């Protein structure tokens, strides 16, 4: 009974994507990186929901939208352990995990003020040189950036 009530907090989805286990503090960054604000379909955003695993979590239910893997990989830097449930006709037909891509373009800011990317109107580009520890290298100034120093644009 308790479970049912909790489920009812968020409307069921006929077709679309449910993104679960988003760290609460990253939820709105995830919304922005996925371009959710530009969608025309109904979106439910759950914030600070109780989670056994995470304490507090965020959840996104997006109707009528199925993400390509490289779209979804954009959020891997800030929410590496999210799960995607692909819903068709009220059923979960597929579960997807995010993967850190080999290259990250236009999401991260280079921490070097003398880097060309901070001085020209251009996209940033980073190679992921260590997927396990999440270390990036700027394609331009070659600065290595560790996970804890990563800043999003």
């Amino acid at each position, binding site marked *: 009974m308790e479970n049912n009530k909790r489920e009812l907090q968020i409307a069921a989805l006929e077709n679309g994507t449910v993104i679960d286990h988003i760290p609460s503090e990253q939820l709105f960054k995830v919304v922005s990186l996925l371009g959710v604000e530009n969608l025309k379909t109904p979106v439910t955003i759950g914030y600070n929901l109780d989670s056994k695993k995470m304490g507090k979590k965020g959840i996104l239910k997006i109707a009528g939208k199925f993400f390509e893997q490289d779209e979804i990989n954009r959020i891997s830097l800030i929410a590496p352990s999210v799960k995607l449930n692909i819903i068709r006709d009220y059923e979960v037909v597929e579960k997807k995990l995010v993967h850190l891509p080999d290259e990250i373009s236009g999401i991260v800011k280079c921490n070097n003020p*003398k880097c060309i990317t901070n001085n020209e109107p251009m996209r940033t580009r980073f190679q992921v040189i260590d997927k396990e520890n999440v270390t990036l290298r700027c394609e*331009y*100034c*070659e600065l290595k950036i560790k996970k804890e120093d990563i800043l999003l644009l």
Partner: protein
Amino acid sequence: MNKNFFVSVADLSKDDILRLMRKAESFEKEPNRNILAGKVCATLFFEPSTRTRLSFETAVNRLGGKVIGFSDAATTSSSKGETLKDTIKMVSNYADLIIMRHHLEGAARYAAEITDVPIINAGDGANQHPSQTMLDLYSVYKTQGRLENLVITMVGDLKYGRTVHSLIVGMSHFKPHFKFIAPEELRLPDIYRQFMDEHNLPYEEYVDFSEEVINQSDILYMTRVQRERFTDLMEYEKVKNVYILKNCMLAESKPNLRILHPLPRVNEIAYDVDDNPKAYYFEQAKNGVYARQAIISDVLGVG
């Protein structure tokens, strides 16, 4: 190596480096060739560097090419706020080759992305100065007859000295044994120690500049300890006269030892070293023209 640009030492394979060494060697034997006849080379120096610019322009002239360009961005549209992209696009309409120096790091890599005209990086901020590395490598190659299995000792500012960092990367293909001598404050950065560990390159670090280390070396690479690098000027006063090479320190050194320095020097090599046949820094600068001729001919696929 993508033949169309020369941006970073890290892009070069062992074969690329050896090919450039052989080319430099052949340009040294015969520096005046007409392989750039009819070609226009632009030297875009957004930041002044007389030594590097003259060396590149000499290389182009000796190969029969024509030079256009500027030696100071203050006289160009970039001082009016033009983006690098627009300047590069504009010059690409005129020139067959762009040799550029810029104060921003990554500028040359970006330029290489926005134009089909070959780009040579003549220095991008504190990041890369790969033609300096080529002339350093050529100087090692020429004086030792090989690049493999050498003991290379680097002295001075190992923290900020980009020539030091690039030489480590360039030499890494050739099983070097490095020795680093620097004050604590100017020690080699972690990422280069990691780089050597990843490549299984042996190295030792010292604070004392001793004859014992010099005597084991094949190459002694001196750099300048600059006052402006120190946060604590007391520290600078303590070390400024410690990392100075004097002729008497070379008495027991190996016969094949050669002393390199990217120049300009201030006081880190005493003048009495200049007459020692092991002093090689002036010839090293001369090698810059041959190394740059090799780079130019390689990116343009001529000669």
